């Protein structure tokens, strides 16, 4: 396993406040798919992701993994049930507060979702561009890129990087707001096995180094085995909730 990355100089990462507690209580999400038909993407899921834990949500494509991550990340709202993070029920937050909440978490996507016309450095800064911060954004981003081994590629466009490097940039972007919670949606899905392992090592090192809570969607059993907990979904239901 990778060593925890050193805290970047000039930033506050060394004082990360640890991980967030996530509590799901009877969470359901139902989509209208036309002609009055509905699709229950997530059905009555409950569970607690403890602070500082690494949690895998597994299941086949369409089982509801991504939807569950979107609900935890407040990109989507449940039709019933509650998502409580550090004691705050997300249902009670307004649009502005939800955006602030999303700013307190880090999101990593399967296809990296980097902005193709921005440099690697600008991509890492992107989440904080509209905000005044108490730190030097550029310096923070450069520190994070150094952490993920891409300090020399700051001026490159994402298209000039390999898939693994792009995912590292995405992880650096996820860290720019000093998150207590990282949500990763199939973070190794577009990578070869060896590169995928490196990415998982990097994610796990964040937990080991800073106590960040990690929830990742995957159907890779090798990743699941390295997690503290595994929740398996099938057709939106939780069919297994175990500690590997």
């Amino acid at each position, binding site marked *: 396993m990778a060593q925890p990355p050193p805290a970047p100089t000039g930033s506050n990462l060394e004082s990360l406040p640890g991980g967030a507690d996530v509590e799901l209580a009877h969470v359901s999400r139902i989509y209208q798919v036309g002609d009055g038909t509905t699709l229950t993407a997530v059905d009555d899921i409950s569970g607690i992701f403890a602070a500082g834990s690494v949690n895998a949500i597994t299941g086949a494509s369409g089982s509801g993994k*991504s*939807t569950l991550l*979107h609900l935890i*990340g407040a*990109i*989507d709202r449940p039709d019933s049930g509650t998502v409580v993070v550090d004691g705050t029920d997300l249902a009670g937050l307004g*649009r*502005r507060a939800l*955006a*602030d909440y*999303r*700013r*307190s978490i*880090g*999101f990593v*996507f399967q*296809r990296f*979702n980097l*902005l*193709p*016309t*921005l440099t690697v450095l*600008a991509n890492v800064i*992107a*989440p*904080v*561009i*509209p905000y005044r911060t108490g730190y030097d954004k550029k310096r923070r981003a450069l520190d994070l890129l150094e952490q993920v081994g891409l300090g020399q590629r700051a001026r490159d466009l994402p298209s000039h990087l390999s898939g693994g490097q792009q995912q590292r940039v995405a992880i650096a*972007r*996820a860290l720019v*707001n000093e998150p207590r919670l990282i949500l990763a949606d199939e973070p190794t899905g577009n990578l070869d096995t060896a590169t995928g392992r490196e990415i998982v090592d990097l994610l796990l090192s964040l937990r080991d180094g800073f106590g960040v809570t990690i929830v990742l969607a995957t159907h890779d059993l090798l990743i699941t085995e390295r997690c503290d907990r595994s929740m398996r979904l099938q057709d939106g239901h939780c069919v297994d909730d175990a500690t590997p």
Partner: protein
Amino acid sequence: MALTNLLRVPGRTLGGVVALAVGVAALTLLLGVTQLFQGAVVGSLLGNVIAVQVRGVDYAAVVITTLLGAAAVADVLYLGIRERATELATLTATGWRPSSLTRLILTEALCVGLLGSALGAGIGLGVVTTLGATPNQLVVPAMLALAAGVVATMVASLLPSRAVRRLPAAIVLAEE
């Protein structure tokens, strides 16, 4: 970031700029002729004698042309939003507020509006000077036409900026 977005498809952005410039150039011409020549002037252009008389219907046509130009800019912005939906949804997921996304779109609108209006005002100013006016006399008409172009563009861009606020981030990211 707004400039980078506009330069992503330069041909399309240029189309919006030119569409707006046509209306603003005509508006500058009409305002110039109205102010300096009381609505009618005879002059020469490229060696030919021309007579220009401004009527109410000309203003109506020019206003419609300017509004169509502003609508073309709004269309450029709207297409950009559709093509960048995943990127905008990603920014939402990383904590951008809807108001920040709106500001981004309005900044893009302002850039195109200013560029198109300045180009149009410049062209209109150039045409009126060939009729005997000096550029100094045309500052006010040119500025009025430029302001009208920018305002029309900003009003038209309210629709795309509203669309970006309503972007269904979860669905966009799920489809990705």
